[in-house]
């Protein structure tokens, strides 16, 4: 065989392989692009919804107990509207329902509890079975029983509700006002850890219960999407649980290859979260510290001369310094 023939045979053999691997690489690239696009759209929609929530809720305060039901409905409407328009399917009922089925459950986090907005099958007033998203009952952030006596209901802030099993009384207030009764509340970090774990567990428990129900529903209705328990990073839980917001789980968007698409996204409305720095008068000095400062909660607030009227919140150290406040020597903000 002449060299040219060898070259021709070689090329004929190698060409299909090159073509196939090229195509595979192309599909992998497109798949990645698609997944990134879904991530982008979903994150965007959640942020939009949270943004609108913070805009609307800005005028409300917790004490007045606003009509949360319409706020909630508007929130999920904002979220889904943003999704429909991002995928350009608004008005097309079939495709809209399909997108809804990819987001089987949304968790709306409120100050004193959370509610799930999830796909359910139920009989409507006309006796026709409907399968769609509905609000489930609001649940509280209930923690474990401390000292075999106190069952605690947490909130997103430092406020707690305590049920005393011995005296059958309900107490409420800031956690540090119960420091003498409940030793775990002596340490701020310990309280935050307890709070975080309780909130997380309450939500996970609720989601697990819903998942069982969803599996049955998906089995009987042959919904193509199966919903598995989402894994959320510890860091994201921390972020989630500091503020009112929306946590959504999206699964099953069509992809080209590989594992099924799974994504969770979180939007916080920044309503509960206070400014980062607090300024106060202490021993004739003007000081500012982090709102989480141990010294501030322990010593300053408990000192006899402390005047709660005098405290000022700052967003950053520059604002505080320009008002003549010096940084706290303990937490060094």
């Amino acid at each position, binding site marked *: 065989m002449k060299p*040219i023939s060898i070259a*021709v045979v070689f*090329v004929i053999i190698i060409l299909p392989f090159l073509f196939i691997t090229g195509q595979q690489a192309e599909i992998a690239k497109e798949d990645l692009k698609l997944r990134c696009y879904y991530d982008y759209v979903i994150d*965007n929609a959640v942020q*939009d919804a949270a943004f609108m929530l913070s*805009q609307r809720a800005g005028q409300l305060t917790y004490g007045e107990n606003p009509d949360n039901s319409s706020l909630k409905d*508007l929130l999920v409407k*904002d979220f889904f509207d*943003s999704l429909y328009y991002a995928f350009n399917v*608004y008005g097309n009922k079939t495709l809209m329902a399909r997108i809804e089925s990819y987001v089987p459950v949304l968790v709306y986090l409120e100050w004193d509890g959370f509610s799930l907005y999830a796909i359910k099958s139920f009989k409507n007033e006309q006796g026709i079975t409907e399968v769609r998203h509905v609000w489930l009952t609001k649940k509280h952030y209930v923690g474990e029983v401390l000292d075999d006596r106190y069952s605690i209901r947490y909130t997103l802030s430092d406020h707690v509700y305590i049920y005393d099993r011995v005296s059958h009384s309900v107490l409420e207030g800031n956690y540090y006002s119960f420091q003498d009764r409940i030793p775990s509340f002596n340490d701020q970090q310990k309280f935050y850890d307890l709070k975080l774990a309780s909130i997380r567990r309450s939500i996970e428990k609720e989601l697990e219960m819903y998942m069982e129900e969803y599996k049955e529903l998906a089995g009987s209705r042959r919904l193509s999407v199966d919903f598995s328990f989402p894994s959320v990073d510890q860091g994201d839980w921390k972020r989630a649980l500091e503020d009112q917001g929306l946590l959504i789980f999206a699964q099953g968007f069509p992809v080209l290859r590989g594992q099924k698409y799974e994504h969770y996204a979180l939007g916080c409305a920044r309503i509960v979260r206070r400014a980062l720095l607090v300024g106060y008068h202490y021993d004739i000095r003007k000081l500012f510290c982090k709102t989480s400062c141990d010294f501030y909660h322990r010593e300053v607030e408990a000192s006899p001369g402390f005047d709660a009227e005098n405290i000022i919140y700052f967003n950053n150290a520059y604002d505080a310094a320009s008002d003549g406040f010096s940084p706290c020597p303990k937490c060094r903000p």
Partner: protein
Amino acid sequence: MDNVWWKVLAFLLSAVLLFLVPLMNILERQIDIAYNVVFAECNRFADACRDTGYITPNMFKEFTDRINSTGNTYDIKLSHVHRTVNPVYRQEGTSLIFTGRYEVNHIAVDETEIMGVLFPENSPLSVLDPARRYEMSMGDLFFVEVKNRGKTMAAALRGMILFIDSESPDIFVRAGGMVRNEAY
């Protein structure tokens, strides 16, 4: 005779390998680069509009200049959905009673209307005039969609080699979301 067929085959293969394959590769890389540019610019433009709440002729012109620098021509579609939240009232006799529900209404504004504000015909207004600024409200939805017009070189060549005629555009980007500010 045998030899001749080998030579023809070798010639065809070398034509494919020496000319078409590298050319195809270059063109496809070009599409990739163009896609990246268009993707980035679309997001930048959409985000700018969403963060300011308006579109000015200069913003739009800069956006089109940037994506046209990729050497392709594009179809640009802007869409704005104005959303209003209205309380739902129920009529009982002669009085209206608030039902406690809200209704979100959507008003879609199409391309021609937006363009009519940005680039009015025979208008003496300068590009910096506020009247030529298209304004949106907070909570509205704004999207920009870009796809390449006609066929790119790469698509034409691919069609020729693989005997396919694909209608789907090589470059398609859709970006946007909710308007978050009213900075006018």
